[in-house]
């Protein structure tokens, strides 16, 4: 993004001034997580979640959903924290609390559709990272969940104008970022970065939000960005996208991000990618069930 666009966008954000603040539970949770793990910390996390009854209820529902592995059945926040561990519980809290703060951003994209893609990408990012044996993937789910957060920013900032961008993307069967660039001169990657900075998200997640459409470049060659890019692409092609047909083909072997991951992780060379893709159809069912539990009945807008 050129500096002029950044300034323009920044001014627009400041002028409207309605970008949602980071939910306080997430900010406090962030503090707990950055401190060293301790009994005290654990109690504080349980307390934070329990404070908000509807959040606590949704967290339990999510923790018990097939998406988070249903093997354990938890009936209290404390047990959920103990069973899932603090990293996973953080993922659950983010998944549950973010949709509500963006509830009003429905002039651009249907919230249920947005969060289906976000949670789908989060899940696939994590699975792919695990299959590739990438170490330290604690934040990968979160990066997947937040990668498109700029789309919500654009919905809030631009309202009806953003609706036109979405309609054009759907009509021309083109990826959203390309249409945004053409019509708006910036993309959700740029506006997402502004929100990421405002929320003081960890630098690697902010970088992923900004570069998830241009991974494996000189600006960003992190495993996180590459994995989120691939998960995003796979989700959009496999029933977890934004509900419209994107007329595109990609072959993994020639994707720079895949090539980069292959050079760093031997497991990539052995991964049965076709089967991994078919498994996405299994994830799609689980993600839909979770989104249904958050939003009630969702519009049947899945085209694939």
């Amino acid at each position, binding site marked *: 993004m050129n500096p002029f666009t950044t300034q323009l966008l920044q001014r627009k954000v400041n002028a409207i001034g309605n970008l949602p603040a980071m939910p306080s539970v997430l900010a406090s949770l962030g503090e707990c997580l950055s401190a060293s793990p301790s009994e005290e910390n654990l109690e504080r996390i349980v307390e934070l979640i329990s404070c908000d009854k509807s959040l606590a209820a949704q967290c339990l529902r999510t923790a018990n959903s097939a998406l988070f592995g249903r093997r354990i059945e*938890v009936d*209290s926040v404390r047990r959920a924290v103990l069973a899932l561990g603090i990293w996973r519980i953080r993922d659950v809290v983010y998944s549950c609390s973010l949709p509500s703060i963006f509830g009003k951003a429905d002039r651009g994209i249907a919230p249920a559709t947005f969060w289906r893609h976000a949670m789908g990408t989060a899940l696939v990012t994590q699975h792919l990272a695990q299959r590739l044996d990438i170490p330290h993937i604690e934040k990968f789910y979160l990066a997947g969940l937040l990668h498109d957060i700029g789309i919500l920013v654009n919905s809030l900032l631009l309202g009806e104008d953003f609706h036109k961008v979405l309609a054009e993307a759907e009509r021309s069967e083109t990826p959203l970022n390309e249409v945004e660039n053409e019509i708006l001169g910036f993309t959700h990657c740029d506006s997402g970065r502004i929100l990421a900075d405002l929320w003081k998200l960890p630098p690697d997640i902010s970088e992923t939000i900004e570069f998830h459409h241009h991974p494996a470049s000189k600006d960003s060659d992190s495993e996180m960005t590459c994995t989120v890019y691939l998960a995003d692409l796979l989700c959009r092609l496999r029933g977890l996208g934004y509900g419209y*047909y994107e007329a595109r083909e990609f072959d993994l072997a*020639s994707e720079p991000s895949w090539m980069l991951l292959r050079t760093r992780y031997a497991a990539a060379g052995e991964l049965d990618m076709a089967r991994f*893709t078919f498994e996405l159809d299994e994830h799609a069912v689980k993600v839909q069930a979770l989104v249904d539990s958050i939003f009630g009945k969702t519009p049947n807008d899945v085209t694939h």
Partner: protein
Amino acid sequence: MALDTLVAPAQDPANAELSDPALIKLRDLIYCISGIYHPENKFYLLATRSRRRMKAINCKTFADYYEHLTTRPNRNAEMRSLLNEITIGETYFFRSQAQIEAVSKIILPKLVASPSRQAYKKLRFWSAGCSTGEEPYTLSILLIEQAANKLKDWNCEIVATDLNDNSIAKCKEGLYAEYSVRNLTPERRQRFFKQEGNLYRVSDEVRARVKFERLNLQDQSAILFMKGFDLIFCCNVLIYFDGVAKRRTVDHFYNGLVPGGHFFLGECETLFGIYDQFRLAHFPGATGYYKAIPGEETGASR
């Protein structure tokens, strides 16, 4: 609401058998042998089809059946019967919607826009193992529908082959029951078929583009002549070949494609562990294989 009411509800007993761990082992065994993958959301199909075979050989549980398929002397024959059951009745017009959309919305536009193709505007498709003809006729309908715009001035040919003489005769006859045409829009039925009692006959226009031939994919010399294709479909055929025959046949397909050509298997079939010259290509809702053009730039989505 009390928090203890929020735990996940107990699983529906009707679906209980779908979470039988033996079914997962069965799925993985079928995948290893045939390359056909059943995602969890298709387990009901796997269960129904396996149960038909289990009834025939008097197996009570999926675990018993798995044991039968892995340890009994007649396990290969039984696996073949199961694969027959899995792929039976699978053919009807416009069956693999996502593959068809990939051809019409992505592959065809790319082919006709390619500068290297402008001097010789000819497209060739091959439906290998065409069974009773629904697949090649679907491709023919697709080409006719695009003949007025995208494919104006293009010469398109579909070669459809099968080992079975009866299938080829049925293809040429072009007469289909309701089951085969159930996925067709009323417009397509009207335009491309003529109703004859309870049956539907494909129009001469659809028939004209398809050339049917009997061909054994194991016949090494005959298959050598199958060259110069832009697109090859081979659905649920390779599953019946052993590893060596599979590799050899796919190698022929690879050589039969022009660089930049595409190869499609059945919707849930893969080439993993069989052949690695192709690149795996992702389309919305479908996967296929791509023969790269020598020296082709890597690094961009096409």
